[in-house]
């Protein structure tokens, strides 16, 4: 998985957090319904969940609401988490599931409804705040992602945008490795075909001989 830079100082000492222990304590508190445990979970993993969501959905107006739902679901089903050390991956799995539901609902509405949801243009100018070329490329990328099947979109986003390993993508999507390979293969082919119609993406697609 791609990691964010911890510091700008090249020689700074990085002290790893003892995540496993803190997660175990957090999960124990959540199971005991200790006051404040839900907020502690949100504080510890809110950024992680928002990052998974933005990878899967793009800069969407409903990211905050979906993140809220992810944590409500997590609190309701914390008893089902068997290994507290898997908390981070488990939350990612819930986030992917919630995002998937939202994307599928939008697709359904687009089919049955007169109005199209704003999914194709989630990255408003206000949110993007970037130069014209970058804005055009980013919007083109989301247009293409929006045309993929929901499961293919999620697999593609986790693999290439979030930079997850195949096994991590499979775990986040709760499917087998072979299924995720098939989805990513299918998404790659569809993305390449659709991207050919988006000149703004040409530079970002780069390519190797």
């Amino acid at each position, binding site marked *: 998985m791609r990691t*964010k830079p911890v510091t700008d100082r090249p020689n700074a000492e990085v002290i790893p957090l003892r995540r496993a222990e803190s997660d175990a304590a957090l999960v124990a508190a959540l199971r005991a319904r200790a006051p404040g445990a*839900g907020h502690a979970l*949100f504080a510890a993993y809110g950024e992680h969940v*928002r990052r998974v969501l*933005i*990878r899967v959905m*793009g*800069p969407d107006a*409903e990211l*905050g*609401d*979906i993140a*809220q*739902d992810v*944590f*409500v679901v997590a*609190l309701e089903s914390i008893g*089902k988490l*068997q290994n507290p050390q898997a908390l981070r991956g488990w939350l990612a799995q819930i986030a992917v*599931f919630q995002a998937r*539901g*939202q994307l599928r*609902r*939008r697709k359904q*509405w687009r089919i*049955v*409804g*007169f*109005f*199209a*949801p*704003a*999914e194709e243009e989630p990255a408003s100018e206000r*949110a*993007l*705040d*970037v130069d014209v070329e970058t804005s055009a490329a*980013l919007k083109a*990328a989301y247009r293409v992602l929006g045309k993929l099947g929901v499961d293919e979109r999620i697999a593609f986003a986790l*693999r*290439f*945008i*979030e*930079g997850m390993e195949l096994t991590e993508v499979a775990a986040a999507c*709760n*499917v*087998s490795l*072979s*299924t995720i390979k*098939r*989805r990513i293969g299918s998404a*790659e082919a569809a*993305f*390449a075909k659709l991207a050919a119609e988006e000149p703004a993406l040409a530079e*970002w*697609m*780069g*390519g*190797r*001989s």
Partner: protein
Amino acid sequence: VSAPKREPDFRGLGERIAREEDAILTRMEAAGPGPAFDPNRRVPKSAGAWVGTRAAIAAGALVAAAAGAVLFVRSRPLDLVVDGHAEAPGRWISAPAEAEVPIRFSDGTAFVLDPRASGRVSDVTRRGAHLMLDAGRARVSVTPNRGGQWQVTAGPFTVDVKGTKFDLTWTPAVQELNFVLTEGSVTISGCELGDARPIHRGERLFVSCLRHELRLESASAGTSSADAPVVDAPPATNDEPAPSAPSATAAPPSPPESLASVPAAPSARGAPAPDSWQSMARASRFADAMARVNDLGFDTELARAGRDDLVLLGDAARLTGDATHALTAYQRVRARAPGSDAAATAAFAIGRVYFDQRRAYADAARAFGTYLTERPRGPLAREAMGRRMEALSHAGDLSTAARVADEYLAKYPNGPHAPLARTLRTR
């Protein structure tokens, strides 16, 4: 000489997108904290934040918009509200031990899951919905409506409903159905009932799939039809019937109120003690049963349990969300009694665990396929084929799902998975 074809650089593309998304997140955080997390607030599901954002519809398109709105309203499925929160279909719903969970629809129809009951609304259309009851009691009140399409399934049973009120209890551990119709009429299919058995107002129905027992009685008359069955139970066809399972004619008459707690067939070693985990599980007290099992030691009980108790143990674990122990118990059944009805039922149950709790759809599809291979005409065959098709669809194997969809529609054109099958077939 043509230039060599260039492969798209998806990694490079992804890194560019990720960089911009990280910058967006940073800007969002810098702009100030969003709404505080509220552990008790579930956000109503919407189709997106499109209302209002598309306000700039051209004035010239008003007529088209109106026509579209009509189409939209007519096509829109009923709203689903679970325990006061807007919800999308498909989510597993499990009522806690101490409270019921109401499931309401925008036409006034309501399903109420009793404490400890579980199930899911698998499909909602503009005309109705499909409730799949996993275990426990559901009280159903369907608003009469022309063209309404409401269906409740529980194990092998399907209830086709129009405007009706009824209570339905399904106990998967012993494969027993209790049904009380208070208003209207329905048809019920499955297991000992065959196809589309009509049930009328005031009638009570009890069916035991394992014991091949069926009783239909009039609640107002207060008489049990066990003495004179309305419908004769067919002869047992299981290859391994329970050793002491009573026959339909041997079943003792029971007053109507006893229908909700029909005792299970005693095991070959005698009836279990009332405080045994087996008794608790048979009374749908699955959490209590698993607590007792864990006190005694899961592995100890696993080694000690007979074949039927292993199925019961698996069901208790599954219905308390303990997927690991459920799978262990079911797999032990299959290892201990290969080829038996219990082994086939265990394969079906394994499929449900993989599907509902692990969301491991490829594994679920395999398990449902195993059941179909072993019992192509078994009491759960229709459900297994439907669930297999659904699992294949979720797993992304759409070509196989389409083949299963064709087979399903040929065999069960009005089955509960028929709408999904038609969707998959026409893709």
